[in-house]
């Protein structure tokens, strides 16, 4: 894929060129939205909105990492969605316990393609992490999703969230610490995953 040529064509209004770029980046854009929003349908909507906004604003793209530019658009779409949710809160999908607390890993969310045990481990890990991600402030969440989940480097993350490099470092460190604290609460739910990483020695 000749990305610069496709971007140039898209800037001239060629929708087919932009659609080629979409096909290349749609997974990362969707996954970023999913981890920020924590809901597939909302993530899907945010990704679509982001691509529409990106096409309309592509003339303002002035070089640099196109991936970071796209992720900035999707991050903004996610922020909009989160603001909208704050204004109009919806009922959570998770069932509640008798005390009114949300159940983090309801059994009815299980994927039947895996064995019950595997399913349980995978789901609990994912749900626990997503739960902890959701507890982070939005700006921390966006940084940690892009850096640790999507694997962007610091300069790309800085470009995507339009913040200085020092801010990115600070947010990332805080987000990782908070995540660690949050995940401690799920220690008994995720023993294998934790031990797997805990055994790694400091070089």
């Amino acid at each position, binding site marked *: 894929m000749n990305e610069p040529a496709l971007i140039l064509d898209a800037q001239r209004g060629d929708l087919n060129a932009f659609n080629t770029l*979409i096909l290349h980046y749609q*997974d990362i854009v969707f996954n970023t939205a999913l981890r920020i929003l924590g809901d597939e349908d909302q993530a899907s909507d945010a990704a679509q909105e982001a691509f529409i906004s990106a096409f309309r604003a592509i003339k303002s793209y002035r070089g640099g990492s196109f991936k970071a530019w796209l992720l900035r658009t999707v991050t903004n779409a996610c922020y909009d969605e989160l603001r909208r949710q704050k204004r109009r809160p919806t009922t959570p999908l998770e069932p509640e316990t008798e005390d009114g607390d949300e159940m983090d890993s309801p059994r009815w969310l299980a994927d039947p393609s895996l064995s019950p045990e595997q399913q349980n481990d995978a789901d609990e890990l994912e749900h626990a992490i997503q739960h902890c991600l959701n507890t982070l402030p939005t700006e921390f969440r966006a940084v940690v999703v892009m850096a640790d989940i999507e694997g962007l480097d610091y300069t790309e993350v800085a470009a995507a969230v339009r913040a200085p490099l020092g801010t990115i*470092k600070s947010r990332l*460190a805080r987000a*990782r610490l908070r*995540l660690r604290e949050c995940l401690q609460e799920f220690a008994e739910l995720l023993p294998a995953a934790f031990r797997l990483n805990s055994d790694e020695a*400091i070089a």
Partner: protein
Amino acid sequence: MNFRDIELLSAYLDGQTSPSISTRLESRLKTDPELASAYQALRESRGLLRQLPHRRAPRNFTLTPKMVGLKPPLPRAYPVFRFATFLATILFVISFIKLPSITFGAAAPAPAAYGVGGGAPATQPPAVEIFPAATQPPATEAPLNQMAPTTTGAPATEAPLNAADLQPTATSQPTEELTRVAQPTAAVDMTAKAAPPSVPETAPFPLSNWQITFGGIALLSAATMFGLRRLAANKWSGK
């Protein structure tokens, strides 16, 4: 250990520290268990996040022209026709604004000949001659409407007289006719009704050659614009 150390450890974890800072941190990690524990915590957090399954997009997010509000590019000749339509329409309208003075100038002798052009002729004998004529079948409405605006200067005093005199010859609804006659133009209305049918009729607001030309250009250009737009849309949607 302070938060600055945590920041450095986090950056060190990602290989984002300078070599000198990295060397210093490595020596501290060997001697400071608290720092080593914090480093381990950061590393575990990152490791867990990297274990998250990478979800694929549930569908393609490709865009359609409708989604982004794209319109087909217009042909190069389109602005020319648009300008021609605009100009011809303006000229066509202007030609109508100028028309009344020209038309009425040409048609002026007719009302004068009928004795309804002004107050003076209405009081002259021709007005008397009208009464015998009023017994004849009433004139059609077309000359009525044509002449009504020209008779605003007619004396109001004549209205009741003429209306009353003509009452027996009024067509079907005499009372309604009388109520309408209460307006100042009614007097002339009646005299106009009494006009002899043998008067030669001129076409109302005849179109001049210029008007026909401007109107034709405007219509043709608009039709061409429409055709070009449709052609471009068909071509664009088919590609």
